[in-house]
């Protein structure tokens, strides 16, 4: 029998543990690999640029300060999740943590709403990003304006939704191992693309950009001369302008809910597999999530500074204001001369007067999308499987095909509603606010997990006392509770702003978005109904769902 000895840290001469060779005992994962996963979750280009295109709504909000503040606050959430991983390392993320600490029914309702029903909304959001960052700029750059206009129309958006759904389904079928390889390739090639974008923005001046923008606005979009100034003029009907140097703390706080669109997810997929000696050590999961977060924060800071330097902050925000206000039919809004979403990558490409180069840059930067979007259904599939194994959902929901291992039950439960929701997104603009709320509902799910973390030391004292974080205390109070409270307050602040901002800044205030309120109330009611019906039906079958998480007495 092969075996091994392992020393405690700093005591290499003295083994702290004798291990024998046993099934499943593996060596720890590379922190870099885990970092890549976390890095993708808070995708700087795909999610980041899209989310930050809305910050024009807070013209006095200093974006760099907002990003740094968000990074600090999300770090507490990262610590909270890393501690939960440390206490319950391989149990399935939010659903398991909430179920075990808060109770099975509450855990089901919150996680099924957050990781199943809300993910329907993310399919069209992904699809819209695919249109504005890939199909539309690429088609215009190649001179295929008909294709570009198709994808910006209602049917084009719907077709893009179908493409995203097909892509996410293929990834679920291929499995994470294959997709992780694709992600790695996308990661390195995408980084090269980003470096090219940064170099272009670094070496050219703002005058160069103005000239390049004016040239390509005419060449690619048929805009009259002077499109740079015309964009600012168009925005000025509804937008007072923005200065990068303005700083005021209140508006910085108001930026946070917008930044959540991409910076709130370093803990995405916090589940780990594999029995690693020391897997309960908090440091590995913490550093992977922390590095993903702060590398992204650093990179976005560089990109924002370069946009300010070369594209011009007021122009960039004006372009965003003109595009969104025109799209949302804001009163007095005027359409910008370049009628598509202001994509900084496309703008950087304009600096090189070569359409093949510009198209290649858009394709390469499109890998930021394809290396990320494949995980759309992975969390949902996991939650649906867990609910089916708990007998809350029918057993067919967890079925997989024998030959190709396709989880067709879970995929049907994801894809069919997603197609319906996508059609609503594409053809019913009245429902826009529902999609803007997609971030808020996931934040609510995170809030429930932070509540579970806060009360864990008392509610599941046995688990907590046996965990390596039991000794982490600040003035006698468990550290997981303290970081959980800070994370919870941060999430509550954003939830308050999303729900009750008096100016409806985020387009999600409850009083202004009755469709959104109805939709989300309906999803929570649906989750409660599913759980209650399941309990009644299973009771008749002799199955008591209440006992799933009831602990067997030890003595």
């Amino acid at each position, binding site marked *: *029998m*092969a*075996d091994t000895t392992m*020393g405690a*840290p700093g*005591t290499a001469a*003295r*083994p*702290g*543990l*004798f*291990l*024998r060779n*046993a*099934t*499943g*005992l*593996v*060596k*720890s*994962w*590379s922190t870099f*690999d885990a970092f*890549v*996963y976390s890095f993708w979750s808070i995708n700087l280009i795909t999610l980041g640029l899209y989310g930050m295109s809305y910050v024009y709504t807070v013209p006095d909000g200093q974006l760099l300060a907002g990003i740094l503040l968000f990074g600090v606050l999300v770090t507490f959430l990262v610590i909270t999740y890393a501690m939960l991983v440390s206490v*319950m390392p*391989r*149990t399935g993320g939010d659903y398991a943590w909430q179920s075990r600490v808060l109770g099975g029914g509450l855990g089901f309702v919150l996680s099924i709403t957050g990781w199943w029903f809300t993910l329907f909304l993310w399919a069209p959001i992904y699809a819209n990003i695919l249109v504005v960052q890939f199909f539309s700029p690429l088609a215009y750059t190649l001179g295929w304006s008909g294709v570009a206009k198709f994808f910006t129309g209602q049917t084009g958006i719907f077709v893009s939704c179908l493409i995203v759904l097909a892509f996410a389904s293929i990834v679920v079928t291929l*499995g*994470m*191992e294959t997709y*992780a390889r694709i992600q790695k390739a996308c990661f390195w090639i995408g980084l090269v693309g980003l470096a090219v974008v940064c170099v272009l923005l670094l070496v050219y001046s703002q005058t160069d950009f103005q000239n390049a923008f004016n040239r390509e606005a005419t060449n690619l979009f048929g805009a009259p001369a002077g499109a740079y100034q015309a964009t600012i003029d168009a925005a000025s009907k509804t937008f007072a302008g923005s200065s990068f140097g303005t700083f005021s703390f209140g508006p910085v706080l108001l930026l946070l809910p917008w930044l959540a669109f991409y910076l709130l997810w370093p803990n995405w997929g916090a589940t*780990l*597999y*594999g*029995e*690693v000696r*020391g897997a*309960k050590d908090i440091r590995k999961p913490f550093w992977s999530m922390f590095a993903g977060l702060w590398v992204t924060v650093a990179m976005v800071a560089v990109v924002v500074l370069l946009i300010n330097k070369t594209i011009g902050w007021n122009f960039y925000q004006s372009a965003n204001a003109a595009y969104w206000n025109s799209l949302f039919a804001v009163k007095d809004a005027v359409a910008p001369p370049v009628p598509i979403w202001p994509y900084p990558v496309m703008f950087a490409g304009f600096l090189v007067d070569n359409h093949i180069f510009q198209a290649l840059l858009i394709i390469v930067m499109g890998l930021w999308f394809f290396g990320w979007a494949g995980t759309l259904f992975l969390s949902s599939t996991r939650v649906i*499987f867990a609910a089916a*194994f*708990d007998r809350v959902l029918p*057993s067919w929901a*967890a*079925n*997989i095909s024998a030959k190709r291992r396709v989880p067709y039950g879970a995929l049907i439960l994801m894809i069919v509603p997603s197609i319906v929701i996508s059609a609503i997104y594409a053809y019913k603009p009245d429902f826009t606010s529902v999609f803007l709320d997609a971030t808020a509902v996931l934040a609510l799910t995170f809030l429930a997990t932070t509540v579970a973390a806060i009360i864990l030391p008392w509610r599941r004292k046995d*688990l907590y006392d*046996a965990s*390596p974080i039991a*000794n982490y205390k600040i003035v006698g109070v468990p550290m997981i509770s303290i970081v959980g409270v800070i994370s919870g307050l941060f999430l509550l602040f954003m939830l308050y702003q999303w729900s009750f901002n008096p100016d409806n800044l985020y387009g999600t205030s409850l009083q202004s978005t009755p469709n959104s309120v109805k939709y989300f109330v309906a999803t929570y009611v649906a989750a409660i109904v599913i759980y209650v019906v399941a309990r009644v039906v299973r009771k008749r*079958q*002799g*199955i008591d769902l209440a*006992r*799933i*998480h009831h*602990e*067997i*007495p*030890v003595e």
Partner: protein
Amino acid sequence: MPKVFFATDLHGSEMCWRKFLNAGRFYDAEILICGGDMTGKAIVPIVQENSHYTVSLGADRQQVEAAQVPDVEAQIRRKGYYPLQMSLERLHELDADPVKRAECFQQVMLDGVDRWMGMAAEKLRGTGIRIFVCPGNDDEMEVDDVIRRSDLVELGEGRLVEIGDFTMISTGWSNHTPWNTHREETEEALGERIEAMAKQVPDASKAIFNLHCPPFKSGLDEAPAIDADLKLMHGGRALRPVGSTAVREAIERHQPLISLHGHIHESKGAVKIGKTLSINPGSSYEEGMLMGAIVQLDPKKGIKSYQLVNG
């Protein structure tokens, strides 16, 4: 109508074993089946030095007083590790000599199983609850002898047993793993081992196949992808099927009423393979949580109901 409670892969967790013994009363089950891999994977030395003891728990090395040692030992056992008090000289001796370390491991494992058999007798004698144990691939062969000596716990390995109107065959052997454990063999040999028992089954529609290794590509056999150095790949997030093709073929050929599996802790689930309900309840032994399956058998319906629980 016997109600069965099945749990597996306790890996030395005394808390899980205690829960397992209480599961009969807790879930009103008349039959308890432990699916294998009972023994722990690690010894944690508690080193006596002068007037105190030192022990490494997780990432921390702690000094404790003699009075605290029982609590520390309980905490270690809870995780499935074996606490072992020793001198500093003995620690270095075990560290330096793999043979002595292997002997030490075997002794603590067999002592542990023996103590568990005693606990079972104390807890279940006179209750009418039957308890079956079938060691898994991680359990040394000598474990079987310890179980055979028990007058209450029944050894399942390699034989057909009757459970009311139903029959059960069991094996803890698996296909080859990267760890080269005690009960591994080729798919062909494993297939023959299962077939030798399966052909004794009088009625497959009332048969339980208690096979430690899950069927290949069943969804019950998804293990973390590792490289040749046993290092987790892709940040510990990628899974691949590692179950047995022989087990799958046996299930597909004989179509028993139900098949019970373990081995792959992460792959909790219940799936249908033809007419057979195949279950892997998973394992979270290191958290002291007993993951299990309750199966209500019915002579007419076969399976009246089943449920996976985290006790």
